[in-house]
């Protein structure tokens, strides 16, 4: 049985989204798929969001006026600034219904269309099959596995590194 896909509104993340983030970053599914800690406090989440580097692209997916997912493109320093790191998370109650797809599409549109990035990279736990499938659909390719990458529920789990390379933006074709 396929649940009806959601059609979330995608918009920039704003300070008013803090409470929604505190709620969904603390959910068991989000914690399992990311590096979030148990019982995130408001101050912890606020600090985490504030520490993202200048130039970060941060979008949220909104349904019924509430942010239920987010994606970030974190820029790198010079000599690596043709690339960015992508992070994404979706509220436990809204997974499997197209929210991640909508967030990925919007973030990569900015990466390709506005930032002209050549490389977008991400890491995902090796057993997170739905996420890996999502990333593959958007052209991400596995580049390797870091062993004992992070602690998750009492185990040291491996992380798959994926990246998506893009050709440089084309020159405009005036007069056409």
């Amino acid at each position: 049985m396929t649940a009806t896909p959601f059609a979330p509104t995608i918009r920039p993340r704003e300070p008013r989204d803090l409470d929604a983030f505190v709620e969904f970053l603390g959910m068991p599914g989000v914690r399992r798929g990311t590096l979030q800690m148990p019982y995130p406090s408001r101050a912890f989440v606020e600090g985490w969001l504030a520490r993202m580097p200048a130039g970060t692209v941060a979008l949220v997916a909104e349904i019924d006026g509430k942010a239920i997912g987010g994606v970030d493109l974190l820029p790198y320093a010079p000599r690596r600034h043709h690339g960015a790191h992508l992070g994404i998370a979706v509220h436990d109650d809204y997974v499997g219904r197209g929210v991640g797809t909508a967030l990925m599409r919007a973030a990569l549109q900015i990466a390709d269309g506005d930032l002209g990035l050549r490389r977008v990279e991400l890491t995902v736990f090796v057993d997170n099959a739905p996420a890996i499938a999502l990333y593959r659909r958007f052209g991400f390719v596995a580049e390797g596995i870091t062993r004992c990458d992070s602690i998750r529920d009492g185990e040291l789990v491996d992380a798959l590194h994926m990246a998506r390379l893009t050709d440089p933006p084309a020159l405009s074709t005036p007069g056409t």
Partner: protein
Amino acid sequence: MTDLPADLQIRPVEADDADALHALRQMPSILAQNPPLPGAPREVTRELIENLPPTTLKIVATVGATLVGEADLQVGRNRRAHRATLGISVHDAWQGRGIGTQLMAALIDAADHWYGLRRIELRVFAGNEAALALYRKFGFEIEVTQRAAVLRDGFLIDVHIMGRVREPIAYMTTGSLKGEPQ
């Protein structure tokens, strides 16, 4: 066979090292194998030393008054508190003398025996065979090859992530009450 300088010293980095460290980081062969930007201002290195987080162990190698190498271990936080990222550079004129081996041995000893880390990782530009050989000697293996990850002299080059994984630290072997009936 190495030609290890007799008066080589390994010690923690000090605020006074800022200028020498900056000069080291701007050497052509260092820039060719590490991501800092050529012409980066001196303040960047000064601030780096002054603002070292308590989770970073940073050491330097000196021969007399000359700073001939640097290395650091940046320990992770939260769900990555079991691991660290390692970085190392040796002065152009002092390469091939065993200084990298000494710096590596110092950090690995700290990581294994005093921090109790399970994983150390590092990044190395593809094709840096001398560095790859040094890291392999200490048990690092290539885990990831990031394509086109860094710009060097007009080309996007690949970067390897190497990892080294250890068993958990042991219980004390003498006089431990572990397992004794209470």
